């Protein structure tokens, strides 16, 4: 994975940059000791590492603004960082960059149940947003699997999803307003506690812009009243095709499950070996979860099981109580841990039209044979967001082969009418595949947006766009 050559003029001024940052920030908010900056050398895409020039950890919007102003004046690239859980390398530094972490900004600023909103500083973790409102029976809907650790700042940067977005949507559908600092230090407010920000939808544009347009320091989020209950049903099938057809029929039927999760045989076996959840040994498995009161759950499950029976399931297991429900989820929730025990893995994130599931799974299988690497599939089937896990041996030098195979799988997703990433983001990981999905004019339109928010291309500049496509802009700015 190429990264741009660090700017020697920035590296040469390292001491001066650190001194200027120390002038505008509290002493303990600037980290420049190489022993300490090393902690910021990567995010959850651990194959790529590079310690930054310095790290700043501001505690307020004003401090973020002050730090960015210094970096802007001195021409220093800035890489914003939430909790560092990006799977796409979104927070990977370069040697000439300053990491701006929001980890110290974790306050709840306002909670209003009547208006169903919470306003938080964006260093707060996803799960602790729900934690702040659950005593009153509310929750924050987007639930990425890293929700215990990941920060709202990163959720906004990547427009994170989760297992329940079939019903509740992703971050952008639950974000009402932000306070954001532009690279030159200007503070802007977009949206608020009301619906639909006025004028052009800059809020929608900022969400999912991977920290390239500004640093979001505060967010107003929609909170929802918790449903009365939720129950999963587990359905096993003898082929992926049949499981895929069942998914289509369920979402067509007028019942909107909160989640439809799909696991294929390699994944089922690995999870079973790891967690012993009692899954049947079959080709494909669906976990469908519905919400409501006990009567409402029964009504929805009756409809879903009737649809499933039309597809001759090899197993159909309703959870009779909380313990059985937990067992149904146990295997799925331990899927990544199970894989991690067997092997190193790359987790992909392509999304495809639901109708193309069987075809794409078959394509992945033949790529798996071609590369001689095993793939386990576990994903959010209701919205077509796949998560193929490519298993490989990092010590055996298989990383490059696994990456090449990952690129082929994502190309397959795009050719099927889908996209490279459904919820993880582009980062550095899929940057050079953007040309597979977008024509040059499409990328140009996106880069024009960055020109507007960050004319100097200093914010997270080496991400999202193929390096060759952004080269002219990045170097012109130097």
């Amino acid at each position, binding site marked *: 994975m190429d990264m741009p050559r660090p700017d020697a003029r920035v590296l040469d001024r390292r001491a001066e940059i650190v001194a200027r940052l120390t002038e505008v920030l509290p002493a303990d908010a600037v980290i420049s000791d190489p022993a300490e900056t090393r902690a910021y050398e990567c995010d959850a895409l651990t194959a790529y590492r590079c310690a930054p020039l310095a790290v700043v950890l501001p505690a307020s919007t004003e401090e973020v603004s002050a730090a960015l102003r210094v970096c802007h004046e001195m021409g220093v690239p800035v890489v914003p960082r939430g909790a560092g859980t990006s799977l796409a390398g979104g927070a990977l530094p370069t040697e000439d960059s300053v990491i701006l972490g929001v980890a110290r900004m974790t306050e709840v600023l306002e909670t209003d149940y009547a208006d169903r909103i919470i306003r938080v500083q964006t260093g707060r973790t996803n799960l602790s947003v729900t934690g702040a409102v659950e005593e009153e029976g509310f929750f924050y809907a987007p639930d990425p699997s890293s929700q215990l650790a990941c920060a709202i700042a990163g959720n906004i940067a990547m427009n994170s999803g989760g297992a329940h977005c079939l019903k509740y949507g992703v971050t952008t559908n639950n974000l009402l307003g932000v306070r954001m600092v532009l690279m030159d230090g200007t503070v802007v407010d977009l949206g608020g506690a*009301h619906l639909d920000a006025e004028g052009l939808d800059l809020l929608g544009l900022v969400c999912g812009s991977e920290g390239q347009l500004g640093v979001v320091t505060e967010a107003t989020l929609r909170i929802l009243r918790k449903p009365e209950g939720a129950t999963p049903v587990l359905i096993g099938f003898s082929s992926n095709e049949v499981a895929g057809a069942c998914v289509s029929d369920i979402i067509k039927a007028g019942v909107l499950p909160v989640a439809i999760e799909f696991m294929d045989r390699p994944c089922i076996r690995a999870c079973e070996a790891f967690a012993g959840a009692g899954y049947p040994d079959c080709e494909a498995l669906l976990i469908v979860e519905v919400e409501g009161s006990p009567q409402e759950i029964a009504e929805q499950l009756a409809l879903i099981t009737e649809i499933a029976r039309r597809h001759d399931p090899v197993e159909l297991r309703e959870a009779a109580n909380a313990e059985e429900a937990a067992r149904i989820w146990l295997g799925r929730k331990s899927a990544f841990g199970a894989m991690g025990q067997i092997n190193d893995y790359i987790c992909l994130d392509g999304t495809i039209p639901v109708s193309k599931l069987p075809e794409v799974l078959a394509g992945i299988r033949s790529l798996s044979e071609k590369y001689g690497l095993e793939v386990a599939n576990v994903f959010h089937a209701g919205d077509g967001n796949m998560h193929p896990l490519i298993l490989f041996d990092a010590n055996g030098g298989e990383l490059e082969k696994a990456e090449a195979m990952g690129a082929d799988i994502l190309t397959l997703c795009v050719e099927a009418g889908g996209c490279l990433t459904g919820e993880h983001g582009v980062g550095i990981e899929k940057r050079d595949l953007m040309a597979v999905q977008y024509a040059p004019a499409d990328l140009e339109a996106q880069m024009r947006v960055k020109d507007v928010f960050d004319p100097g291309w200093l914010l997270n500049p080496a991400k999202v766009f193929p390096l060759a496509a952004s080269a002219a802009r990045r170097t012109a700015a130097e």
Partner: protein
Amino acid sequence: MRPETEDDLARLVAGADGPLRIRGGGTRDIGRPVPGEVLETGGLSGVTLYEPGALTLVVGAGTPLAEVEAVLAAEGQRLPFEPIDHRALLGTGGAPTIGGVVAANVSGPRRISVGAARDFCLGVRFVDGTGTVVKAGGRVMKNVTGYDLVRLMAGSWGTLGVLTEVSLKVLARPVTEATLVRRGLSAAEGVGALSTALTSPYDVTGAAHLGPGQETRVRIEGLSGSVDYRTGRLADLLGGGWEVVRDAESAALWEEVRDLRPFAARAGAVWRVSVRPSKGPGLTAALEAAGLSHEAIYDWGGGLVWLLTEDTGDAGAATIRAEVARRGGHATLVRASEETRAAVPVFQPQAEGVAALSRALRQRFDPRGILNPGLMS
């Protein structure tokens, strides 16, 4: 000008030597009056792809909304965001197009539950002000590949580009619906009841109050047993005096709210105000106190306030915008004479930092300033 293909449209825009007024069905005459030659999108019509099992529809931007709705209805599906039909309110004719719905981000009462029009836009194709064809997003339900230009285009009123094709997420029509109705509540009481309903776990998909003494309405949709259950629980939770109407009768109540029928037959200017829901009644009380005579309809649980004012002077702009600014939110002058709309900012004036970003985006996407110039000012 009425291009029949995207390529023709691109050539027309590239070759244009003056401003263009982009027109779908011409039913939403909203915004600052725009000079220029009319560019109609009606030629870019037809369903490109419809996969009911994937909840996906791809359609030419000039396709009449009625045609889209008929195609979906045949499969028991619909556009969930319940777009407003502006014809009665604005006194316009013609047939609304799906491109117009997206360009104006038109969402109705169900917006509080499922989201706005832009939340259902999966992808768009458009021609920018230089005549370049651009694709954004795609046709899948989850997509974070690159910037979300789809949301930027939705609600940009043709000022950044001319939409040629839109991909939409659709949903199944529910089996049944019911509405709880109560008369005689004040605005504060009505909005209070709506808030109680919306903070319950009973999945309310409509929450409107039609004015002091008028009806307060709460809608439930879904499977029949579930609708019965939730209707019963809500009736208990809200206290006595609520009557339940079902199915077609219920649907008619929401068409009335969606299309703002009570204001359609009345003369005057109409404002659309978005505030935090609990601030709705306080806003109208403050307008009253400031001497601005008006009537109000509250949708979105109180968060969307429609105001009917006299179409004289600034139609109440200064007072309304001052009170909205105090509470956070925005006010758009949806209906007024051309003279009023030429004199008063139709869209909410923005803070300078945000306005500068919007100006710069327009400059990048439409460097010659020829696409609906000034419409959103």
